[in-house]
């Protein structure tokens, strides 16, 4: 999982944030657009690819399938990874503020 942590992008981070609650692909697209006030617009191909990658890494898990849609949520491992990433971003933000 070291690789995924090193390359965690804005997209991946937003998907992880969104999956603190159970959601399907399009639900994530809508939720991310909502909580970023439209700044992060995810495409269907990007979301599908990212979900597969996060699922393979064990950070998210499929919770159920309904009306052709897979629903996903963070695993314990994903929750820990999200917390670590949030701390890292907060540290970076603090460094930046210290220089401004």
């Amino acid at each position, binding site marked *: 999982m070291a690789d995924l942590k090193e390359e965690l992008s804005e997209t991946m981070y937003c998907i992880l944030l969104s999956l603190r609650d159970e959601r399907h692909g*399009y639900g994530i697209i809508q939720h991310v657009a909502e909580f970023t006030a439209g700044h992060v617009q995810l495409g*269907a*191909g990007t979301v599908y690819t990212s979900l597969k990658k996060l699922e393979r890494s064990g950070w998210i898990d499929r919770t159920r399938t309904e009306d*052709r849609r897979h629903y996903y949520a963070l695993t314990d491992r994903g929750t820990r990874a999200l917390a670590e990433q949030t701390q890292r971003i907060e540290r970076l933000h603090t460094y930046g503020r210290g220089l401004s």
Partner: protein
Amino acid sequence: MTRRTAWFAAFLNPTPAKLENWLERQAAQGWEPRELDDMSAIRMHLHAAKPAKVRYVVDPQQRVDDSYRATYEDAGWHYVGELSSLQVWNRRYKGARPEAFTDNTSRRERDRRLAWTTGVLGALILVGAVVRMAFGIAGAGASSEDWPLEAGLLALIGLPLVAVTVVLTRGSGARESTPL
């Protein structure tokens, strides 16, 4: 004329981005594929339609499930068909051109998925060309005199596939995303 045929469109536009652009130019001129199959890479039927701004997305996916299609359809995409493991989607639009791949990482991975297929196929065909040449030079086999033509044809197919693989790999490498 209500229908025309485009030959070798997928070979002449071998990367997802190039094929998307080509399909979009056809749509702007009033020509659209209604359905696609494996033969469409060689012979694609285009039907007359009202010229329109249509965004096409070419997504190399070997295996897709219902959830894959639902995610695209929920986001407003229309499924056109599968063309040799390339899933093709389109969407009419006004204003900004919609995107299905919205970050560099997923665009790079899309290219790599196709590069994997073209690379393996191209390498196997080139190995076949070399083996045919070796057997031909050694004079083995029933039709040993045909080896230059057969090996040449295999190389003619294999080399472009390898070239496409290099383009896809280099192109994606140049668009590395910056980690958060």
